[in-house]
């Protein structure tokens, strides 16, 4: 009987151990940009002199940019809002048609073509 009690207490102690937090991919940028996680998709925004580059990954795996319709929504500090298409150039990379000004709020909107599921990631330009 005592053995059973010990066994039960041991099992209880085991179940009380905090669960290990499992990471689902690295949150480190791969191209020197800034990253945002949206659901399971990691969006990395890289600022170039005349454009933005956007890279998408899921659990460290690149996702084909061609699978998405991408839009860049820019809200300038004064409140003016513009939308422009993101161009899927290769692999998991999109490129914008221009570079938003400092202080602008930038939303990367991705619509998966197959499911129409939407993913948003928000950034503020430095």
């Amino acid at each position, binding site marked *: 009987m005592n053995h059973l009690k010990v066994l039960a207490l041991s099992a209880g102690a085991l179940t009380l151990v905090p669960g290990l*937090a*499992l*990471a*689902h991919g690295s949150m480190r940028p791969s191209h020197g940009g800034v990253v945002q996680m949206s*659901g*399971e*998709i990691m969006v990395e925004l890289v600022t170039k002199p005349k454009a933005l580059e956007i890279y998408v990954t899921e659990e460290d795996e690149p996702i084909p940019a061609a699978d998405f319709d991408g839009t860049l*929504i820019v809200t300038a500090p004064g409140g003016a809002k513009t939308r422009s298409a993101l161009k899927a150039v290769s692999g998991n990379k999109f490129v914008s048609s221009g570079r938003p000004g400092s202080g602008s709020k930038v*939303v990367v*909107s991705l619509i998966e073509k197959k*499911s*129409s*599921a*939407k*993913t*948003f990631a*928000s950034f503020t330009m430095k």
Partner: protein
Amino acid sequence: MTQTSPALKVTAALAAGFALLAVSLPVEAHSIWFAQRARQLALIYGVGADDLDAVGRMDKITSVTGFDENWQPVETSLRATGVIPVVDSEEPVSVVAAVMDYGDWVKMPDGEWHSANRKQFPDAVISEHNYKYAVHIKEMPKGAIPMIPGHKLQLVPATSVLPQSMGNPIVLKAYYDGKPTAGVQIITDYVNDPDQLPLVTGADGTITFPVRNQGLNVVTAIYLEKPKDTSVYDHFEHRATLSFVLPHKPE
């Protein structure tokens, strides 16, 4: 002598308050609320763990609205994806809301419900018209959450910040017709405990209770409006949910 932690004292005080406030009114019918499904925000129609046919009831949705962090409207709609209606917005939303007009319902002496009113069924023991509302907070907007047009009954957080841990008290205020309203029934965990004895809002329309889940919380408010003329309807049932998510530990 044992010592009681401040948190336990708060919990004990709240529990005592619940006992005084709890009422034993029957709660029937279903609610609508928002919850995440496959990374998307979905509209759910059901009760408890019953996630019923919301796509088939999309024609009863009379409005879907979304607002950003500055409470600027964001073009928002529902899109049927297979068996689930998901929120489709042009930009990220902080708060999304929906209204459903669920129409006339009568309960007959044999216990069956029909979509009709007492004009068609004079023998009905209950004749009502049902309205359902849902508000989901993805993130608290910068200012107080105002009344949303079309939401005759609405639950609003009384504070600018939501608790971050289950068990911590949350203060909500129930508004009917834009005014804080006493006597609104509150079910604090509609998904996991739908048969809970409802609490009721106090004189100032507020209700305080410990947040139930470190995850999705769906709080339901129910208010029965008495019509001036009760020959056709005994009441109009207004049923509003407020849903929000407490975050889990970082992965």
